[in-house]
């Protein structure tokens, strides 16, 4: 009897959820109808998403929202932001509260499947790295044999660290501390030779907490995979395509050297790839269901990938992150856009 009731409840829930997903198939149409993109962002992560002194949202994740709006509406300001905590983010997307989640979310198999998400291309390849004082004169993690290393407890960071050093036959003394700000303070007080965490965090810490940022360097090795990017929910492939190709368009623009400043000069380009990208040769916009000028608008209003990277987390920002894995494939990185044709 009880089992029957349970089954009935489960079935009802399943129907409810399926119904939800089916309705959500019209995300693209709904976005077009309401006239703005509802974008879920982080409540605060330096360089990725945070309100500036005037309360306006800035960051590389925020620029993805703006780029999507530029592609759909030709206007990067047609975005409404929903600041989300880590716990809220997937529910907000599943329930339809937001249209796209652009909140430094790691792409994993279970999120891609069981959570019902689709992941457009990664916009930031993060991973665990090491911060050391420049005065040590160290150029590689391999030289850290026997070092004391500050690490936050209870995180995968701690496990990755142990694994990496064991595989490479190196010894180290972990200095394990629970709170993030304490571990940072401990490192800068000089108790450890190195501090390990996600490289984006290391860079942020270096730029903000270090008394003199130029006295510290992030080592080139990255020992874990954290591909961060936006996510959309299952059930609307057209919307998924739009977000996906918006990002590819920014990568393609960087590859072709098209920036927000010189994009108008490229309108007379003889390069057929550029002509297709900027909508001079029509077809791409129609295929996506948006205006033929979609990529032009994205580049003009938000910029190419290099521009959004440099101004938010790169050399134009206080974080001063190197491109590293986030460089174009032509420069030895992982950023690669499929042909736009």
């Amino acid at each position, binding site marked *: 009897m009880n089992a029957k009731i349970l089954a009935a409840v489960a079935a009802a829930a399943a129907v409810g959820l399926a119904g*939800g997903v089916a309705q959500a198939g019209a995300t693209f149409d709904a976005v077009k109808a309401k006239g703005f993109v509802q974008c879920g962002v982080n409540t605060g992560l330096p360089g990725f998403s945070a309100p500036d002194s005037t309360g306006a949202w800035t960051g590389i994740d925020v620029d993805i929202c703006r780029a999507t709006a530029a592609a759909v509406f030709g206007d990067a300001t047609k975005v409404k932001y929903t600041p989300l905590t880590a716990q809220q983010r997937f529910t907000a997307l599943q329930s339809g509260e937001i249209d796209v989640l652009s909140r430094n979310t790691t792409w994993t198999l279970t999120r891609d499947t069981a959570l019902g998400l689709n992941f457009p291309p990664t916009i930031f390849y993060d991973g665990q790295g090491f911060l050391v004082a420049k005065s040590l004169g160290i150029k590689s993690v391999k030289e850290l044999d026997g070092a004391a290393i500050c690490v936050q407890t209870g995180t995968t960071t701690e496990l990755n660290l142990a694994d990496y050093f064991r595989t490479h036959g190196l010894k180290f003394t972990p200095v394990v501390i629970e709170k993030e700000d304490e571990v940072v303070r401990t490192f800068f007080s000089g108790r450890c030779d190195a501090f390990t965490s996600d490289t984006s965090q290391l860079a942020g810490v270096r730029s*903000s907490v270090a008394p003199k940022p130029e006295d510290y360097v992030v080592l080139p090795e990255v020992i874990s995979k954290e591909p961060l990017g936006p996510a959309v929910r299952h059930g609307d492939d057209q919307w998924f395509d739009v977000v996906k190709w918006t990002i590819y368009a920014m990568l393609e623009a960087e590859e072709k050297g098209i920036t927000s400043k010189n994009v108008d000069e490229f309108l007379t380009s003889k390069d057929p790839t550029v002509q297709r990208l900027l909508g001079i040769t029509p077809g791409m916009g129609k295929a996506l269901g948006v205006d033929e000028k979609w990529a032009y608008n994205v580049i003009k209003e938000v910029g190419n990938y290099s521009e959004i990277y440099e101004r938010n987390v790169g050399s134009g920002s206080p974080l001063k992150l190197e491109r590293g894995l986030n460089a174009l494939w032509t420069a030895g990185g992982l950023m690669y856009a499929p042909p736009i044709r």
Partner: protein
Amino acid sequence: MTTSAPSPIAPDSATVSRPLVNRLGPLAWMRRNLFSTWYNALLTVLIVWVLAQAIPALFHWLISNSLLAPATSQECRLVDGACWAFIQEKYRLILFGTFPYNQQWRPLFAVVLVIAMLLASCDRRMWNRRLGVIWGVGMTMVAILMWGGVLGLDYVENSLWGGLPLTLLLAVVGLAVAFPLSILLALGRRSRLPIIKSLSVTYIELIRGVPLISLLFMASVMLPLFLPVGMNPDKLLRAQIAFIMFAAAYLAEVIRGGLQAIPRGQYEAADALGLTYWQKTVKIILPQALTIVIPPIVNTFIAFFKDTSLVMIIGIFDLMNASKAALNDAEWRGFYRESYLFIAVIYFVFCFFMSKYSQSLERDLKRGHQH
């Protein structure tokens, strides 16, 4: 304490022509109050030592070594004092959150208005119909200021509200709605009607049995999953309702304490006069019961004013969360002390005022009972 009370060391009172206090010089006073026993002496020395250590350091950090506005974050990191330049850069974000920057005079006026209404409500001469009118008109004006959309003001949706006005509105609206609700719940819990009683008990125990944080999570994470897609009641409204539900349950228990403290004779006398239940409750029981429980009610008010900061966990930019957001500017990271000190002062001013006011109110209302 050393004034008029006769003291064992005083000479025969007949020979004394002036009050004792004037004869106690500073040295004698210190001897009696600070060094009366060896452990008091030790404590005095210890406290003076701690103060001597702390005050110059604090002065150093707060004032003499601190940096003001033209200073950049880089310059701030090099000195060993407070970076007030950070507050000068970020105070508008902390106070008003993500409210459109050039419209921030609106939340400022709203805050002034709410504070003015609160101050007006403190005056007991105002406790009549007038106050209802003042709040009705005042809150309408606050709503117009915050939302806009009329009188030529731009519409600002409440997902953009933040900072102090949001904290104040959550607390004031929450407690204003929860208070009458809690009186009904407290009366319901003491009712002789079984259904009303069991409903009240169930509600109170259910809500009190879960932490506020989980109620907020339910409201913000679970609720949207049960509703059809696209029907998303406002996030702030959901938080406000969770808040009201929680405050009502707690206040109800406080008020029940007051109801139970009223002697049986009062109920019986009211019954003997032939008063109806509502006449008895409104005119005899509640005025007495509420007077008794002023301290715990204010205690609950203060606790809830500060509990509004829990909305942080569902991504609403109240005062607390806005101050954290200010710290997430890549340029200005790491100035935690300045940021938290700034909002601590704001929270303290409000809470201290509530506490002081409740003390004076208690004195005023007790006067009638001291025959």
